[in-house]
């Protein structure tokens, strides 16, 4: 957690709020997808993968169905390579194949400009042609730079561009589950 005396983070969601939001998203996924078995939850590393895993758990509890999960790397599909001082770390993607006739739900922690979601869609299309692609995010903070919207949102959070949102998840960050807002 980024936390300095001058700039303490504002807590936006605690562990319980995250749990409730994800459980609600799980219910919405069940409601929106009559054929749950065709759904693939594709998490974007690192936290999207963990969120996808938790969503699959909630869906199993409620609908008694094991839905498939996967990992979708976006780093090698970004449109800003060579313009940033730091290269994004690439991860191996892993999706159940073939994707034809399936619904792929991209899962990420924060939805911001939409560029990551675009890169994820590009990556998915290199694996095949799913019937549908949807988008789920724990936090939607606005400021889209592309015509993209989420199908499932844990929390809508109006922010200023200069503010930062940080999601912390126990299994990834070794810190209690939380969403923090930092004012720059």
């Amino acid at each position: 957690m980024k936390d300095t005396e001058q700039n303490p983070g504002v807590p936006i969601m605690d562990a319980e709020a995250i749990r409730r939001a994800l459980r609600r998203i799980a219910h919405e996924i069940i409601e929106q997808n009559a054929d749950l078995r065709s759904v693939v939850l594709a998490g974007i590393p690192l936290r999207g993968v963990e969120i996808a895993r938790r969503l699959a758990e909630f869906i199993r509890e409620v609908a008694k169905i094991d839905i498939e999960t996967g990992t979708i790397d976006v780093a090698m599909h970004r449109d800003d390579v060579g313009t940033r001082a730091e290269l994004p770390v690439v991860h191996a993607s892993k999706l159940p194949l073939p994707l034809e006739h399936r619904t792929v739900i991209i899962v990420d922690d924060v939805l911001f400009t939409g560029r990551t979601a675009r890169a994820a869609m590009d990556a998915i299309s290199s694996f095949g042609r799913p019937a549908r692609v949807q988008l789920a995010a724990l936090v939607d903070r606005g400021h889209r730079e592309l015509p993209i919207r989420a199908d499932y949102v844990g929390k809508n959070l109006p922010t200023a561009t200069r503010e930062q949102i940080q999601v912390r998840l126990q299994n990834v960050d070794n810190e209690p589950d939380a969403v923090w807002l930092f004012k720059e």
Partner: protein
Amino acid sequence: MSTNWNRKDLLGLRELSPEEINFILETADAFKQVGTREIKKVPALRGKTMVNFFVEPSTRTRTSFELAAHRLSADVINISVTTSSLTKGETLKDTARNLEALHADILVLRHSSAGAPQFLAQRLKSSVINAGDGAHEHPTQGLLDVYTIRERRGKIDKLHIVIVGDILFSRVARSNIFALTKLGARVTLVGPSTLVPREFEKLGVTVSYKIDDVLPTADVVNLLRIQHERQRKEYFPGIGEYTTLFGLTKERAKLLKPDCLVMHPGPINRGVEIDSEVADGLQSVILDQVTNGLAVRMAVLYLCGGIAT
């Protein structure tokens, strides 16, 4: 997410830290997956231009780099110059100017003179990747060898790696030695004493002249190609004698542990450094090396060429 990489060039493995080597290998894992997709191409280096500049003949390394660049959506220009038409020094500087005029972002250089890639790297804004310079280094070959061992054995640390052949003139051997020792392997070099001088022990490896003594404890045997075309008579026994003393024959392969890997950078001389039965046998990972070479080169191009200049 931050990376452990801030180099524009890959000139050799000697100057890399174990963390940097591991980071390249992890990046290669991600790119290897791309090869299994329906569309085996990602836009990571879209708009970048890679020049394959080979002053020494090479097919497999050049095509491997070329395919790696294509899979990253970079544009590729191939320039081959015969050794005879290019001498060292001034002309290389002229070459550099020409390449700069082409606005090449990445230069992959194969050259008969050790240090040529470094010479260009210091003079060019472009990334320079060493694809083999004289008897100095062949870093991407070293990396793909290490990648292949790590993939099969899950680690490098504490493994016993035996490298057989013409060590003295081999850039492949040097790059392997640097990478393997940094990652904690035990390395033994084997070959005729003229081609495996004791001085190599300064690099933290063991030198042996009796292959039958070291094969039983080997976890990996890496057989270097006997380069008849550049062998000088005074260094080299004869081909038949070499095979008798150091070749991995069918009979000698029986000394190997069942899980020992057999490697060769290619192209193989069947019946010289390795028997066909061994090269095509279950312990051979020679074709894995080729596949992994592509992933490793994609990783290197991405890491060196993707960085903002």
